[in-house]
């Protein structure tokens, strides 16, 4: 990858995504959450209740611990299991939201033992739509969706380039800074929520960055 515009070719057309790929995605995501937990909590202390980093840390630690014990059969089962753990352990709104994202994506993948990037793209769209439905938010409300929607769109428009998705998510997260929050606790702040990057959009961008990193590490 050298920059924008190369994404169309960065996904090997015959790439197959198996359980190991999705385990790697979640393991990389957990490591990124560990590394960035302080920053996520700091962003959350500006417009939220200062627990986003520690909540996700608890959730993703539980996901990796569970994945070490269990060997779910197939990509769908890996994501469903991870989603359940997040709903059970995070303790804040990001638990059911990320839990729903992974669980619905996993359910959409069904019980195939391997999936194509195109199938994953379709499944992730279903997952993102479920998040929008659960939280009742839309793009521009200064939420996770400001990173997830552009990421899903970029996947669809780039023959499922994961680095294009990561870039779109990061761009979406940065673009939340001037927005006024319209959902969640930050919305109580009204105009005072303007000028801060949304913690949920930021962690969503991490999740997409983890996807791209997992793909790069996959032979």
């Amino acid at each position, binding site marked *: 990858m050298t920059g924008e515009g190369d994404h169309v070719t960065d996904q090997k057309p015959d790439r197959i995504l198996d359980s190991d790929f999705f385990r790697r995605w979640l393991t990389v995501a957990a490591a990124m959450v560990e590394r960035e937990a302080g920053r996520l909590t700091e962003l959350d202390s500006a417009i939220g209740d200062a*627990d986003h980093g520690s*909540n996700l840390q608890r959730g993703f630690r539980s996901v990796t611990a569970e994945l070490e014990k269990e060997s779910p059969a197939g990509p769908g089962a890996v994501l469903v299991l991870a989603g359940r753990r997040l*709903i*059970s352990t995070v*303790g804040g*709104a990001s*638990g*059911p*939201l990320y839990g729903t994202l992974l669980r619905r994506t996993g359910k959409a993948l069904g019980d195939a033992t391997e999936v194509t990037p195109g199938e994953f793209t379709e499944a992730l769209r279903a997952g993102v739509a479920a998040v929008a439905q*659960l939280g009742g938010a839309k793009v521009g409300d200064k939420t996770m969706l400001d990173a997830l929607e552009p990421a899903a769109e970029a996947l669809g428009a780039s023959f499922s380039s994961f680095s294009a998705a990561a870039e779109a998510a990061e761009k979406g997260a940065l673009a939340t800074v001037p927005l006024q929050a319209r959902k969640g606790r930050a919305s109580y702040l009204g105009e005072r929520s303007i000028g801060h990057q949304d913690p949920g959009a930021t962690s969503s961008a991490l999740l997409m960055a983890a996807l791209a990193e997992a793909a790069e590490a996959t032979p």
Partner: protein
Amino acid sequence: MSDGEQVGIVLVSHSGAVAEAVAVMARGLAGGGATAPVAAAGGTPDGGLGTSSELISAAAAQVDRGAGVAILVDLGSAVLTVKSLLAEGDELPAGARLVDAPFVEGAVAALVTASAGGNLDAVEAAATEAYQYHKV
């Protein structure tokens, strides 16, 4: 209720103290004697502020008598966690329902109705109707 079983009530708050206190208050205002089963699921298992799917599932199982369970919630993650548990399908009893209601007033209305033998629809209607109780 044809089979005589009562609807159970679960109160989900970010705070264990709030959920417990609202349960106590609802029992008191529902009038002395035996009331329908009500359980609090507040805060996190370690006593912090937040929402715990384990506490919610346990509370729902505790009050389930087979006539349905009305779940009242405060805000944010409490709403989203119950919704996602309901979408899951197997972590809450059959007949569990998220009820759209103000937390305190709705809890009282729900428990009074459930204690009088109202079914789940009646309990939900009473709790939701509490939104119409304007104070000014």
